[in-house]
């Protein structure tokens, strides 16, 4: 739809990285926990439980969007599903998650805040402000790095001395682990442990999930900076292929797998059709909600 220009403006996809939101959200209790994501957050919203029609509608600037078409691709939020929003300022979600975690301290609810960001964001001051304060105050925050090895068009190796970002937990004395972010079960187990640690008052926790994006940084990025073979190799290890192989090994039949794929494709197509039919956001209401 972006390519057909039904969606206008830049869009960042998480194709190749889906196992991280799916695994992580399976480990959270989204009736009380809070997720703070980035512009690469559509998968996070869906994994939190956002209605796909509302998601597509938001991307299309429709009244029926999660935010009435006022937020768009990179800023949508759906707090009813624990999704406190995307963010297009790299790293800015981390300090905000810290506040949500501090709130849990007052009500003793054991609620956890999870903030997800990329490897590039690890170099932002705000992320370090957040990691320091969260660890100084023992706050229930899960800092989750989606390390796809690129910050926009720049490979991580050019920007950091050590590319194991998990080592950044050391100075802040946080529990930490580095996992295969394409293995949805590994993600779920690791985040479950991290959440339990946080609920027990022993947070924060840093998790580095290794992954690769199969598409450009944004739709339209020709990826000229990336060796072709790298993307080809990544395709062979992408999370849906990995999960399918696991399911096959567990005895799930080809027929069942094909059935799942057909169902999901139909669901997505129906959501897109419904969103396209919805009325566009009313531009005359654009000044509403400036003050409460």
């Amino acid at each position, binding site marked *: 739809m972006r390519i057909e220009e039904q969606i206008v403006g830049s869009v960042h996809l998480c194709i190749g990285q889906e196992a991280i939101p799916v695994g992580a959200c399976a480990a959270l209790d989204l009736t009380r926990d809070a997720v703070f994501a980035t512009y690469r957050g559509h998968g996070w919203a869906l994994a939190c439980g956002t209605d796909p029609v509302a998601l597509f509608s938001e991307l299309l600037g429709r009244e029926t969007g999660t935010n009435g078409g006022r*937020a768009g691709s990179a800023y949508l*939020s759906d707090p009813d599903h624990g999704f406190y929003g995307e963010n297009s300022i790299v790293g*800015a979600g981390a300090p*905000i998650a810290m*506040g949500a975690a501090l709130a849990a301290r007052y009500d003793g609810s054991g609620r956890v805040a999870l903030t997800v960001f990329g490897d590039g964001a690890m170099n932002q001051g705000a992320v370090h*402000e957040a990691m*320091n304060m969260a660890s100084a105050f023992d706050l229930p925050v899960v800092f989750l790095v989606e390390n796809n090895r690129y910050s926009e068009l720049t490979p991580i190796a050019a920007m950091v001395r050590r590319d194991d970002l998990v080592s950044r937990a050391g100075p802040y004395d946080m529990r930490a682990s580095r996992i295969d972010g394409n293995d949805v079960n590994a993600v779920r187990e690791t985040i479950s442990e991290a959440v339990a640690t946080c609920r027990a008052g022993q947070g924060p926790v840093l998790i580095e999930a290794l992954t690769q994006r199969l598409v450009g940084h944004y739709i339209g990025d020709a990826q000229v900076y990336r060796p072709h073979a790298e993307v080809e190799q990544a395709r062979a290890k992408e999370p849906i292929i990995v999960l399918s192989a696991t399911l096959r090994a567990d005895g799930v039949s080809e027929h069942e797998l094909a059935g799942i794929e057909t169902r999901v494709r139909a669901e997505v197509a129906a959501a897109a059709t419904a969103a396209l039919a919805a009325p566009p956001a009313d531009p005359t209401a654009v000044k509403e909600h400036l003050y409460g």
Partner: protein
Amino acid sequence: MTTLALAKAINEGLRKAMEDDPKVLVMGEDVGKLGGVFRVTDGLQKDFGELRVIDTPLAESGIIGTAIGLALRGYRPVCEIQFDGFVFPAADQIITQLAKMPMRSLGELKLPVVIRIPCGGGIGAVEHHSESPEAYFTHTSGLRVVACSNPADGYSMIQQAIRCDDPVIFFEPKRRYWEKAEVDTAGADWYPFDAAKIVRPGTDLTLIAYGPMVKTCLEAATAAEEDGRSVEVVDLRSLNPLDSALVMESVKRTGRCAVVHEAPVFSGYGAELAARITETCFYRLEAPVLRVGGFSTPYPPSRLEDHYLPDLDRVLDAVDRSFTF
């Protein structure tokens, strides 16, 4: 009625707000044990505990981000930025997050965050400790920007800001912190905090000011009276939203106007006022709207600040100039 200094009046206002609503939190650098460098939060941690009055790490972006997260979860944090110039490391969170989130979510995400900023010069401090950064924030839609000028307003306006569901940037004129006046701490019948006020009526010229310059303008009006000129003084109190109705009514009546602030004149808040007044009152103006303010330089070292800051003479000079047209 009690006689209170401005710093104490705001302190009492904060205390009252914390008593009234357990969701109100105070946070910032050295606000707890020390009570803040200007002692505006003095005694609050002792009485409300370390959970509600939080000494934070030295990380302004982190402080505002934390406040946003707290507000998303139903709290009403009041952040202290120690000195005006230190708000710039927090500008990211204020401008890109705090100001934008409520509107972008159709008001579903409410952010009742108050950011208190001691502002302005005149206390012999250095650059970054004497600045007037209000225009950066009035330029950002989605923030309320207010400035108190006296103890009574300090007491009521801080409570109104805390009760407000919108983010509020709350400027406190630090050189007036120790100046005393009568405050009615019993009454709750407050003047609206987004309304301007005529603090001295007059017929010949309107001086518009806010924060630290209100007192300077009142002194100028007294001095002008000796020259036979009746000068009206408007205390704007709220810079965004702007109480246009009161301002325009005053200027249409007097026909002359000067805007006074400490911040540099160039691209300062006065430029917006001058433009709006000209657009609205053009045929009633006897003279162009004049502006009095700081120079377009970094704030100077203490020994030079008297030359930089607008004072009685500069305001009176503007009054005289207005009458030459």
